[in-house]
């Protein structure tokens, strides 16, 4: 089945088995292997990509449903040699160990910061009617959809703060 979307700023056209998830389309059909398969069931966040600026689990989304969407993956963040500020902060703060969850953590961070900038609340937001203040507790809750078994959470928090996480 023919599907077209914009991938990291470039037009991409594919002829896909409708069963193909966005994650497998990226990894197996388009050669973008940065998005990772950790659980394949939306339970780890390693496959997180940005679709129309919002973070989603690529493993639970069929590729054919993304006609005309704008998809950004970990490969689309750096400008040539210049890392995206979130990538640079992860490197500087040692916010990963094995690196398998890292692309998902980084994409999730970018999506999370946009959500916060848009004023979205989280479970730990005490006053749902107040402006969003991205405290440490807010960052931790909002990033909980990205498991890191190496448990780099303190370093991930530091990276997000240094990348502009504190509003």
């Amino acid at each position, binding site marked *: 089945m023919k599907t077209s979307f914009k991938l990291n700023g470039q037009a991409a056209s594919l002829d896909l*088995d409708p*069963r*193909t998830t966005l994650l*497998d389309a990226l*990894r*197996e059909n388009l050669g*973008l*292997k*940065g*998005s*990772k*398969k*950790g*659980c*394949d*069931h939306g*339970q*780890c966040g*390693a496959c997180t990509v940005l679709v129309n600026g919002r973070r989603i689990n690529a493993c639970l989304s069929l590729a054919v449903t993304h006609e005309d969407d704008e998809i950004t*993956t*970990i*490969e689309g*963040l*750096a400008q040539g040699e210049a*890392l995206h500020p979130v*990538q*640079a902060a*992860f*490197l*500087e703060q*040692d916010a*990963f*160990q*094995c*690196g*398998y*969850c*890292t*692309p998902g953590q*980084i994409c999730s961070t970018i999506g999370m910061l946009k959500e916060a900038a848009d004023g979205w609340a989280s479970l*730990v937001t005490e006053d749902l009617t107040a402006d969003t203040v991205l405290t*440490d*507790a807010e*960052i*931790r*809750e909002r*990033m*909980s959809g*990205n*498991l*890191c*078994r*190496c*448990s*780099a*959470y*303190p*370093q*991930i*928090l530091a990276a997000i703060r240094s990348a502009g996480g504190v509003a």
Partner: protein
Amino acid sequence: MSSVKDWAAPTPISENRSGLIGKGVDRYEGRLKVTGTAPFAYEVEAPSPPAYGVLIASPIAKGQVASADISAAQAAPGVRLVWTPHNVPAQGERGAKINPRSQRGSNPALAAKIEHFGQHVGFVVADTLENAKAAAALVRFDYAPEPADLIFEDNLGAADQPEGEEDVRVGDFEAAFDRAPVRLDETYVSPLQNHAQMEPCATTAWWDGDNVTVHTSIQMVKGGQHTLAETLMIPSTQVRLLTRYIGGGFGGKGQSYDDLTLAALAARELGQPVKVAYTRQQMFQATIHRPAVHMRVRLGAQADGRLDAFALEAVTHCRREAPFTEHAANFARSLYAAPNRLTGHRLVKLDIPAAGAMRAPGEASGMLSLECAMDELAEQLGMDPIALRLRNEPETDPETGKPFSTRQLVRCMTEGAQRFGWDRRNPKPGQVRDGRWLVGLGMAAAIRGNFLLPAKAGVRIDADGTITLRQGMTDIGTGTYTILAQITAETLGVPLAQVKVELGDSDFPPAPGSGGQFGAATAGSAAFAAGMNLRKALAELATGDPNSPLYGDDPELVTFGGGNIAVDNRAEPLERLVARAAPEGVYVEGSITPAADARDYSQHTYGAHFAEVGVDPDTGEVRLRRMFGVFAAGRILNAKTAMSQITGGMIWGVGTALHEYNEVDPRYGSFIAQDLAGYHVPAHADIADLSAMFLDEVDDKANPMGIKGVGELGIAGAGAAIANAVYNACGARIRDYPLTPEKVLAALP
């Protein structure tokens, strides 16, 4: 053979002239990982497009595959092959060592005899992943089930002493315990846990004539190579195994699994590259796990807290055909003084997936018992838990009497207490509230053995000055690439950017791999030795070269620094020397072997954990509020990656105390939690303010660099600190880990 005395002399590492040793430099491979361009095993570019393999698992725990109907699967779109026990190609018998110098037995796949639920019984390869998965569901099996022993608790009576082991006794424990004025006799239970590495096991394999190349996710390069060779019944020289990036191991990838075997077999059969990955569910059911352990602790003390009698007896389980003992009592042999001692292990054999090593095997489970028991004994005695531990601090190893190589446990506890604010702890439980939360503090000691294994490394310098270290070592997120680059650069006096590190290739000089927190010391010492040998070769090259300003100098006087080789103020850049005198480059190897007298010392890493938790009295939920650890683990090579290792371990302790457990269904032998929604590893929100520090230390009995491992120390004892904090918060003493809301709520008034 060397002696630890040889290791006390100054070295480029101890001199640390350019300051690279200890510096928190960024991860060597970090840029690849933050850009998603580090190729993990399933992502490696094969020479031609690969086919996709999918595994099929047994729904029974024990018995035989009676028959299999593969016709529908074979007829399904895109299918290239369908294997069951009846048509899988011949493999070396389980455990067979066919090669004369083999180090590992074979690991065949798709046996007809089923030894546990989830054992693989079928394999399908197709042109796409979608077609392979759909076809796998079409294979029909008939089974002949047999009765199975599935439940640890039901089989405790069948526990036997592990083969070749004896209890360790010092003095007369029973008599001393009987006469002790203060006694504790409690049993603690640690649960079955899963590694849950983020990257599932995966292999990409292809053949070139009689030679197979496999990229696989494994911690042990040589082990994997030999195992596959035995399984394929070919010489190891025909197997090249690569494992450059590994998405988490934690002991669970210390061995190879069916992805490796079947990818290699299918690639040979099809004449096409094949890649195979485990599903998350298969990671739970068809790899190894940390077994549950029942630990009986008996402490007999004087009124002043001095221990007269100490016993820790651990009962654990393994798969019937795969003996493994979780040595949960071993750590205690070196921890606290007590003249009368008993430690030992018993093993129950079950028909469930294999138990095996998981981060800090032994300590991670074992310390949950004794470090809780010490907290309980302190309360009985009316003592502070730290004071009780100080009272029982031994001067020499309490079991063997050997001197400690280093031991800063006391300082870990006292320094940690001060920085954490331990004096604010109210010894009476249930006294502190913050809103609805009951708040408590707890602490525990940490000890984890230090090891050095034989290893080699190769290092070359090319005419452009690039220095390349090569080793059949792995980096499973531990920072190995980075510390080897630091060691090599410091040894040869060159900037870090001049050094390349290449790991994870069976063609490289062998190292034992990642495990037992021996990686940095072992691989690093071999790299250091290789670097020293390169210094020697270059010094001889320069002093023997008439065109070198060092010509005729004594090679012993040559120094390295700033990228130059020098004697006094005569110097030239390394690349100029090599380009002129050895334009093809210079390659040397180095090796490390354990010192003959290393075991004359009791050698460990130490630490102390401090935790503050909140307990929700409405739900029994426990939340970490604060955690701090102080550790002493030899010379620290990289402040950043070592800290990440230690805090990562501490967080494993949080998971161990609060979240992580799996259970075996008594009817089916399957794990209840088979995915990451059911098995709860800590999520980001579980980890509040958590940090650690290292004490200054150099252990000159450990290895030539005075370093030790840090990968497993962080988890040792961490869970007990949390459990002790929970008790302090709410008065619920739960000896059955983890401390789930269900258990805590039941214990609340």
